[in-house]
């Protein structure tokens, strides 16, 4: 395992460094290889200084495998030309993204040119022209892949299913090949646009990158950089983490920025290469929630499912931050000094104020059956062959002409939704059913239209009771079809 962040200040570079990420100020007799033909200059290096990192900040995006790294170093320049070497062997840094900025003495320092040597793909040289002798603080920014983060949640409902605790976590994974010791970590919640994957760029030579659409590439990166840079870089206080109590969890500061939300982990973190670390990002207790049973075949399949419903708002003791997409694991106090594992589900990004719906699946204590009781047809319309003449069967006298075919009719279905509730308490039930075609829906249960072809019924089913919700569906068929929607009719349906 490397220990790059404790690089010695001075280093003789007789051979190629074994360090992963290396920054060196080249001294001595150096022939700077400006032109690509002169690729043998690395072998001419006699001596280099290796200024160590002062600070490092990671801005990690969860929608893409991209992390913006900004590190600062103090470098002593001499008047005139100063060659700087930056190399990143065995890491996943995108070479096209590396930028050098001068945080101090910027009016006296200028990058004259940048060289990417052909023989050493994970290395570059900056030729810095200095107007003074002395120290300046520089910042190097670049994209790397391999550092990711994800969110997950832990819900524990009480035994009565009235309140729950909800903890949110963020987990940072470092597979970048580099260790960023004592880094300030910022996590970006939101979806960014990238035209190329950083991991791909990291593994491409510069000549391959040159063949790409530079405008698009550059624009995408600049957009990301601009947004990330816009956030305050709270590094001025040093990266030591400040006075954080040893026995208290680190606070995660949340702030909105453009279309994103940024979580900044208090103090600094060291996540070694290959490791991951999970920290609590939010904690809510005694959050009241509702239990609802839903039958929505298009959403949940052909089953009645049980849901926990709560809101990401202040009234629910949440609402301080949107909830990034992640896995929710749901437990319930089993009333016997233990937990019951209910389920786990992935949730999408939940904005502040929005609803959180946790689907627990079917409940063996609440049974739902949909039974067709009767089907019949009415309003049969015949078309006499070879004519445009239509006759209704049983309408204006019995019509028994053989030379005619059925072209329109109504299909009637008498349905019962049979619900048995053994859960020990009354349940709220919602049934949503999509009925394509020209449909008349009859029920005495005050049905509503969810959309033009979806009916919605609501009912309360007391415990220990069997409820039977009767309805009739009339499908207009053939030439009787005049619409593609559902019409509701309040009607006492008989078995």
């Amino acid at each position, binding site marked *: 395992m490397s220990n790059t962040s404790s690089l010695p200040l001075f280093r003789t570079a007789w051979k190629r460094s074994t360090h992963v990420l290396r920054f060196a100020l080249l001294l001595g007799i150096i022939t700077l290889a400006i032109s690509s033909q002169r690729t043998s200059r690395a072998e001419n290096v006699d001596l280099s200084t290796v200024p160590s990192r002062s600070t490092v900040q990671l801005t990690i995006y969860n929608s893409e495998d991209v992390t913006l790294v900004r590190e600062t170093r103090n470098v002593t320049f001499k008047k005139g030309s100063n060659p700087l070497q930056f190399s990143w062997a065995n890491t996943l840094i995108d070479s096209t993204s590396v930028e050098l900025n001068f945080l101090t003495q910027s009016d006296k320092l200028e990058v004259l040119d940048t060289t990417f040597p052909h023989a050493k793909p994970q290395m570059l040289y900056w030729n810095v022209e200095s107007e003074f002798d002395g120290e300046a603080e520089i910042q190097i920014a670049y994209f790397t892949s391999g550092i990711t983060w994800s969110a997950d949640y832990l819900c524990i409902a009480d035994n009565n299913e009235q309140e729950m605790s909800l903890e949110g976590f963020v*987990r940072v994974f470092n597979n970048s090949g580099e260790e960023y010791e004592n880094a300030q970590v910022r996590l970006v919640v939101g979806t960014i646009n990238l035209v190329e994957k950083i991991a791909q760029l990291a593994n491409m030579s510069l000549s391959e990158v040159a063949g790409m659409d530079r405008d698009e590439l550059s624009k995408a990166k600049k957009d990301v950089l601009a947004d990330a840079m816009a956030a305050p870089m709270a590094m001025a206080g040093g990266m030591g983490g400040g006075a954080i109590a040893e026995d208290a969890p680190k606070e995660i500061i949340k702030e909105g920025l453009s279309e994103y939300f940024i979580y900044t982990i208090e103090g600094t973190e060291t996540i070694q290469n290959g490791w991951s670390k999970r920290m609590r990002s939010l904690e809510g207790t005694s959050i009241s929630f509702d239990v609802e049973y839903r039958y929505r075949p298009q959403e949940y399949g052909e089953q009645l499912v049980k849901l926990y419903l709560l809101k990401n708002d202040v009234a629910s003791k949440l609402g301080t931050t949107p909830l990034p997409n992640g896995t929710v694991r749901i*437990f319930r106090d*089993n009333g016997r000094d233990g937990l019951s*594992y209910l389920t786990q589900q992935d949730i999408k990004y939940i904005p502040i104020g929005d609803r959180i719906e946790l689907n627990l699946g079917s409940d*063996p204590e609440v049974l739902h059956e949909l039974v*067709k009781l009767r089907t019949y047809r009415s309003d049969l319309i015949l078309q006499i062959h070879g004519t445009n003449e239509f006759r209704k069967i049983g309408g204006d006298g019995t019509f028994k002409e053989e030379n005619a075919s059925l072209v329109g009719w109504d299909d009637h279905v008498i349905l019962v939704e049979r619900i048995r509730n053994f859960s020990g308490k009354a349940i709220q039930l919602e049934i949503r059913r999509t009925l394509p075609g020209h449909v008349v829906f009859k029920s005495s249960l005050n049905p509503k239209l969810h959309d033009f072809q979806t009916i919605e019924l609501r009912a309360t089913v007391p415990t220990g009771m069997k409820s039977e919700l009767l309805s009739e569906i009339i499908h207009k068929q053939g030439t009787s079809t005049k619409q593609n929607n559902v019409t509701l009719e309040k009607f006492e349906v008989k078995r």
Partner: protein
Amino acid sequence: MCLSIPFRKTLFSVAIFGGTLAGTLGCPSDAWARVKLITLPVRERVEIQLDNAGATLVEEERVVPLVKGENQVDFSWANTQIDPNTIVFRVVAPVGEKAIDAKVLSVSYPPNEAALIWSVGSSDSGSVRVRVSYLLGNLNKSFNYRAVASKDEKQLTLSQYMRLQNFANESFGSTGVWAGFGKRFLKPVGLNETKEMLMEKYENVPIRKTYTCNPAEFDYLDRAQNKLRVPMHYVLKNNKENHLGLAPLQYGKVRIFIDGGAEGSSAFLGEDWGKFTPMDDEMKLYLGVAQDIVVKRTIDKNENRRVGGNVFDQEIVLKYEIENFKDTPVTLDIVENLRFIRNEVRGDTGRDVEWELGKDTTFEGGPDKEKSTFEQVVFHVTLPPRAEDGKADKKEHKLNVILKNEW
């Protein structure tokens, strides 16, 4: 510094003096090599929660000594299917009178190892009781039943067993086992051990013994002679009135015996898979084909009547000749699927069947409204026992159906 640890499948340890667990985690870096001492808190209590149909939750309680400040608590496992994402660490209570506020600060996951390290902040030095919960694979449950029917087949005793199979590569000492209903057991669960536990014994459960003919479901016994297959079932209703109804009956094999009266004279009647039976539902156990009840089914009438154009009503009469050669009266359920009937006389049109009963139907009391649906009709027929001379009284019934508006 690495400290050797006795080999165990799962390992729970606390590095004290502010150190970390290099020993058990293979010394990932120099920074992790500061461990001075590791304590190994033992399991004080283990609960295996089997109430989820698809997952087994293990909860174990340990007393963990903490020092004031940050502590590293390590949890590692080998050759067991612990889902690391489901591991929950909860501080239950301090041990002793000293109030200690302990909280997980972060969790670190080392690469390529089945382990994690909790960083736990403690407000004071002392021991706390913690509970670690996780989903564990290969620790599965199943259910089976033993039913002993009385000689007159009016009732039975149903014993429900839970079988716990521990192939999780981890042994548990005295462990609470709970299926989500019924008793909680406190038993050791050894490595690769299967344990069967009596969950409940239901006495005097009334049996409804049914004989059913349903050509759509059970077909013919002898098609050439139009003889229907008549399976026999025991039907149990899962409710309190029938001395069940404590919980849904879980899916499992049911072995059925009959009590012969004398000591040790019970006989094995057969076995069947009992389906998951929610409260108030019926568990139907198939015992075999009744050979002594003969039902011949023929289509006596098949007649089209034009309604108009190409639309017809079709009148069908099914005739059943039924003989009971048993020496006891029985009730026969005759089930007809209207779509099946239409397929016999018209072929399948794919449309729902519109039908009505005709006046020639002879079944007394009409169809069973609870069991009949839009395309299935159920009748019950009571059959007298055979006569003294062995002759069975042949009963004849007719089902007159009019399939309406077919084309």
